[in-house]
């Protein structure tokens, strides 16, 4: 993410003038970014819970979602609301294929080599994206105009509002799926115990593959939402994916609700750091916090400590 979603460092006088408003302003736009992080981070959690594997290249899937959005909206002038389901479904389908090729063959072997194979798929995606779209960053216009919407003195861009709304809707949709539908309940059952779930007549293999594809689709949605704020380029997702992982670790991979909260807070934190300090130090601080949090609570802030079995 070369150009952050925030405006650059402000002039000191401006800071003094705006005071509290400035604080809310940057916190709010930070939260919009945080919603993106949360969305991707939940994707890690979705695959982790059923397969104990992770897509190490989830950021590249964000990129793919963003680039597809760029192509469809800018090059083919398709309405964003039609683009969204196209992106979601195609990434879901590609996710199924990627799982079959890069995760499933190595999952049962009991080793962690799928770390490398999922990365390999990500590398492929970057180069293919460069071949299709080139390396040059291209702007994507916001879906609903550039005029900020004002709430009193605090303003928000329509795209940011869309991100927060869409991310929350996706998250609650996912939550509804997991808690209210029979299939979702079966997914949670597989997360608890694959063996026992299969005794219920649940095809656990299918659940595992679908979980992986859901994570890819979530990443695609995140790419769709974020690309107007950044630029469309093959490197778009790399750092996003990494940050989302940091958030998932801080919150605890098995705690999707905690992940969303952490994502939003982390976004606000980033906004404030780049607003008051400077953008360059933002990610350095963020990752350092992750490493420290890991030391203090390896199971995550919202995670449950697991007793090691002899």
């Amino acid at each position, binding site marked *: 993410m070369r150009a952050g979603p925030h405006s650059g460092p402000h002039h000191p006088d401006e800071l003094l003038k705006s005071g509290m408003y400035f604080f809310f302003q940057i916190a709010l736009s930070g939260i919009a970014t945080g919603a993106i992080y949360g969305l991707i981070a939940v994707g890690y959690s979705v695959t982790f819970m059923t397969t104990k*594997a*992770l897509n*190490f290249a989830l950021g590249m899937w964000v990129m793919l979602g963003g680039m597809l959005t760029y192509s469809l909206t800018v090059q083919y002038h398709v309405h964003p609301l039609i683009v969204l389901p196209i992106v979601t479904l195609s990434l879901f389908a590609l996710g199924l294929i990627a799982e079959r*090729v*890069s995760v499933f*063959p*190595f999952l049962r*072997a009991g080793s*962690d*080599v799928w*770390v*490398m*194979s999922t*990365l*390999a*798929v990500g*590398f*492929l995606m*970057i*180069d*293919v994206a*460069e*071949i299709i779209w080139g390396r040059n960053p291209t702007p994507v216009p916001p879906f609903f105009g550039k005029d900020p919407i004002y709430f009193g003195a605090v303003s928000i861009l329509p795209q940011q509002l869309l991100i927060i709304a869409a991310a929350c809707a996706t998250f609650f949709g996912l939550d509804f799926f997991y808690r209210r539908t029979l299939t979702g309940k079966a997914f949670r059952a597989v997360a608890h115990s694959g063996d026992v779930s299969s005794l219920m007549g649940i095809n656990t293999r299918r659940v595992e593959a679908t979980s992986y594809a859901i994570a890819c689709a979530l990443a695609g949605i995140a790419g769709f939402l974020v690309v107007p704020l950044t630029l469309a380029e093959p490197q778009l997702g*790399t*750092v996003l994916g*990494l940050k989302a*992982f*940091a958030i998932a*670790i801080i919150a605890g991979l098995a705690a999707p609700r905690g992940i969303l909260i952490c994502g939003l807070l982390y976004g606000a934190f980033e906004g404030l750091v780049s607003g008051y300090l400077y953008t*360059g*130090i933002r*990610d*350095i601080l963020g*990752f*350092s916090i*992750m*490493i*420290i949090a*890991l*030391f203090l609570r*390896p199971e995550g802030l919202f995670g449950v400590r697991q*007793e*090691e*079995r*002899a």
Partner: protein
Amino acid sequence: MRGMRPALIALALVSLTALPLATGGTYYTYLGVIIGIYGIVAVGLNILSGYAGQFSLGHAAFMAMGAYTTALITKALSGSPVFYLSGAHVWLGILCGTTVAALSGILLAIPALRVRGPYLAMVTIAFGWVVWKILQEWVGVTGGDLGISSIPKPQIGTFRLETRHFYYVVLVFFIAALSLQHRLIASRFGMRVRAIKYSEIAVSSVGVDVYRLKVVVFVISAAFAGFGGTLFAHQQNYISPDNFQFFSSVFFLLAVLFGGAGTSLGPVIGAAFLIILPEMLHDFDHYRLIVYACLILITLYVLPRGVMGLFDLPVKRKIDTRAGIQPGERIESLPPVAGANLRVEALSRSFGGLLALSDVGFEIEGGSIHALIGPNGAGKTTLINIVSGVYRPDSGRILMDGSEVSISSMHVAAQRGIVRTFQTLKLFGDMTVIEHVLIALPSRSRSILYDAVMRSRRAREESESHLHQARALLHLLGIAHLEQAPANSLAYGHRRLLEIARALAVRPRILLLDEPAAGLVAEEIRALAAVIRTLKQIGMTILLVEHHMELVLSVSDRITVLDHGAVIADGRPADIRRNENVIQAYLGPSHAAA
């Protein structure tokens, strides 16, 4: 094959020495230097990822630490005449760079090694990214995206080492790195490192602080990478953040996996191949990632054990026969043990609301064989896990020889003389039988790492004596003839005995046997009983958790019976067998009981 080894090594040395002369061109010499440098980094990563099984995808960061440190130091010092004339600034820079990389390794390892497997890999990615970002952002020091240029060439006195000279320096360092790897891995330190990959819990059960060991390995690995980084800086004379991207870290891990993780030469072959390949594929520069991606997938699908795995001919040595057990030989070679008295008082432990142990207390007399029995779910495993330090009790005390002991973890338990075996065997994969025992033997020296590297006379003497002790133990258990067999080639019965041999190597005062007879046939169980009796003869205290009642009745001095997490009977074997509570607990409430 084995006899040809010295000849092969000599041939390799001669051809490596002659390479710059033969090819003439500086280009090939330059490639050789780069392969040597990357080879050193890959060897370091191999120790961590190949042998110890801990994936790191952040090694480019350690390389960067080394490179930037030496670049800054040498540039700052090169103006001074003392250094300018002696050339010492470069070597000082290399030393400092390696040290800084090792120190940052500590800084990362301490938090990062609290998590395992893929999470560790992800954290190292994040670390690598942070370092890369700092290199870009801290323009005042690192030069930002532009990097640092005109880094001094290494010199000896005033003689500047050009690439064709530096080649030989790197060659020497490269061979030194390989031999250091060899020394580490062949030593007892290295055995412990390799064992981590198979079962961390079993390594800690013999008294090794696994977390600390992993941190040490991580730091060694980081130092290799840092050292490689310093050489890289002086070879290139120019470094920038681009050299140390995430992709470089992937490069090193791929080199290790492609060449053969956990083989001595694999990482070198991998590094050489990965450097030469793109040189041959000039036209594909734009598709570099695709090439690497395919290479990763091909490696994982076709060469799961790397290139070196292809040469490792599958001669599965099935030496074992079930009839080889001759227990009780050479008892005199085992020195007596002061078996401790063990008392547990009011132990309670619950798991998520379910009470697994409630107010359990009993005493095991020093030097006796004490059995703990009870139906499924009675709490036996929980008890053995508490005494061996796997779980902490919610309440209650553990006393050894009358004084309370705190057992905070498995390695602490082992250090206090309480050592266990595992119901589900936890052996170290393809490591040999004797290595299992050598790992566990206590050492008189303070640092087995120092011994491994220095090979002092004292250390060599100690390793002689270790070999003797290990063989004596294998004799006792009747598996001495299997000394060189990989554990995963053993018959099941022999594996059980090996577990016990490993535990005995720690010289426990109290030995906890967790269902040692599980899966054994009658004849093997008789042999096991003989071993247990022998251990009692030399004074060891034994707690036996077992379902096989014939074994329990024939060896035990006393039996404690647990049911529903509480003690329901405690007494001599003959009484226990007639105890009404015990019969009910096992066979269920019945009218037929009368």
